[in-house]
């Protein structure tokens, strides 16, 4: 099957920032992204879990964005101001996608 080069960007960021991040991504012109719920985590700021929590304060979401390799930089630049001051991690993997016209 015909595959095309793409990058898979995964942004794990505080749940309170989800709405702002999504707005930024759309402004940055990505064609799409997907938000996964996160259940628990650990980092330099300690361990947390969502069980029993009502406040959005302690919790993260994972945002996955597939895009053409040449667009990664502009995406990262668009979202960097959000990431800089908030806890979270960003990783980029090389990937292949089918139906490249979608990205």
């Amino acid at each position: 099957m015909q595959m095309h080069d793409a990058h898979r960007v995964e942004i794990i960021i505080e749940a309170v920032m989800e709405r702002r991040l999504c707005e930024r991504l759309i402004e940055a012109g990505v064609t799409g992204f997907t938000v996964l719920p996160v259940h628990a985590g650990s980092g330099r700021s300690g361990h947390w879990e969502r069980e029993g929590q009502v406040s959005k304060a302690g919790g993260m979401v994972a945002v996955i964005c597939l895009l053409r390799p040449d667009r990664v930089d502009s995406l990262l630049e668009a979202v960097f101001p959000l990431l800089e001051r908030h806890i979270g991690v960003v990783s980029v993997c090389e990937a292949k996608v089918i139906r490249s016209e979608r990205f």
Partner: protein
Amino acid sequence: MLELAADNLTSPMILCFVLGVAAALARSDLSFPEAVAKGMSIYLLFAIGFKGGVSLNEAGIDARLVGAILAGVALSAVFPLVGFRLLALLTSLGPTDRAAIAAHYGSISIVTFVTAVSVLDAGGIAHEGYMVAVAAAMEAPAILTALWLVARGGGTTQTGGSSGHHLREILLNGSIVLLLGAFAIGWITGPDGQREIDAMITAPFKGVLCLFLLDMGLVAGRGLRNARGIIGPGLLAFGVLMPLLGAAIGIAAGAMLGLSPGGVALFAVLSASASYIAVPAAMRVALPEANPSLYLTLSLGITFPFNLVVGIPLYLWAATAFAGG
């Protein structure tokens, strides 16, 4: 007073909270799904808001209502200044952490309020129904004061999006909208509306509150376990002194407004309580540099149980003594 306190200590509500804390400290895996915790919180906010609105419908609008709301807004806006200063005296924290913590104490804890209403109802002590609206009004002003404190000190407070955007987000916070919306619905539909849904919002209320307090105990206990060593004696003192100070000011304000003893007690409870739902989320957005372990542990692990166990009977006793009961 002592009898009140003893009754309080052996109420199912307090015992449920204690069970939760104990289970979490013992590292039991007992836990509530996030969706269940949120569902219970929606139920409690809706029910308390609705009943407040109905009682306003019955009592009619009162000049004191406006006064109480304005006083609530003023106290919520002013308490963070007090807290900010008190934290400077008691701890060596930087201004951002102090502002973030102080914001929590200017705002309110709706579950503390709800528990106090249950205690009043159980004791047959009357109180103004519109105190729910006062509670909603007190949620947000403290946040703005805290942001102003940081901005004044040269700190940065905004991330992504204008300040108007941010203000709007604070005021349209889910818990404020639900509380005020249910209040408005209760007010419009009045006792007729209440009759329709009473079996759902009144009878099971206390039982749901018990389970919610059990969940809060679990979360608070987990926080205490993870945050061991974070809360020094200065912060601990703040977590107890600030609510006492708040309650005293609240009692004075309530009495000056001419509220009933029950209303004065609720004013004290609102003033004494610290937010752990809306304000932490707002602080993560606006003051991400502030350490969340500090304010979450203090608000949910220290002040919330203090108010629940010691505070509510104390404030009620003081309000009755002061406002004549």
